[in-house]
């Protein structure tokens, strides 16, 4: 086990941490940020282009979501979740420009699978932003514009998949939504098997 002084400077830098005061549930609380976990969003988020630095923070209080915390604005965070939790068959379509911005080569798998069969991790993470409403059933997830992160390069981007057919405000628990989490809603009743009339 190397001691900290044995590590090359870059590794030491990536382990340096500092504490910031973030806003959680309307109250300030400290958050420890390690340099190596900082994500750079060269284009910010849509409509928030000035916000370039974020971290993904686990928090048991919001499981299975996490926080996407801005480092420039400690009061600004998003609730994010893996899309598979919302839509089991979610598909990411990354246009070439987005791949370039994320420094992902064309061979990178477009499947946001949590892990491959060999246990190998994919090159990137995909998150969707959740909007919690006072009425739970009005809460939504933005499936159309997910946040994609190149884990290795620590690069992030909000990708607008305008031809995907996905919704910006996908209900979290709509009984008739396609690709729903079966645990959320009652099982969809089977169609009564009536076939189209023969032509």
């Amino acid at each position, binding site marked *: 086990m190397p001691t900290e002084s044995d590590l090359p400077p870059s590794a030491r830098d990536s382990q340096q941490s500092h504490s910031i005061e973030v*806003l959680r*549930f*309307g109250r300030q609380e400290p958050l420890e940020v390690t340099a190596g976990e900082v994500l750079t969003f060269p284009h910010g*988020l*849509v*409509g*928030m282009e000035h916000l370039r630095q974020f971290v993904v923070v686990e928090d*048991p*209080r*919001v*499981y*299975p*979501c996490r*926080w996407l915390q801005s480092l420039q604005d400690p*009061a*600004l*965070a*998003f*609730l994010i*979740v893996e899309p598979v*939790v*919302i839509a089991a068959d979610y598909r990411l379509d990354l*246009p*070439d*420009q987005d791949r*370039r911005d994320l420094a992902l080569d064309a061979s990178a798998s477009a499947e946001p699978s949590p892990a491959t069969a060999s246990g190998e991790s994919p090159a990137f993470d995909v998150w969707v*932003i*959740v*909007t*919690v*409403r*006072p*009425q*739970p059933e009005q*809460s*939504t997830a*933005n499936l*159309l*514009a997910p946040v994609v992160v190149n884990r290795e390069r620590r690069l992030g981007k*909000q990708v*607008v998949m*305008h031809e995907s057919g996905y919704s*910006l*405000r996908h209900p*979290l*628990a709509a009984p008739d939504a396609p690709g729903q*989490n079966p*645990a*959320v809603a009652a099982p969809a009743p089977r169609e009564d098997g009536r076939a189209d009339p023969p032509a």
Partner: protein
Amino acid sequence: VLILQRKIGQAIRIGDNVEVVVLAVSGDHVRLGIEAPREVRVLRHELVQEVEAVNRDASAAAQAPPASLGAVLGAITPHRPPPLQ
């Protein structure tokens, strides 16, 4: 702002490889054809504005989550219950 007048069938070229053609005009609707390389993304302005609005809503809601948060998290929690606090 550059202002151009075009007739149906006429085009403008933006940069080296983006071309916008006026295909049809009907009342207050203009039909445009846009030819651009794959890496140039063409989005309706309203869509960008909508994504912005959703981002704003989401961040505002995350700043002070409503009391419904627990129910919402419970509804999307897969397989096992959330870890105890």
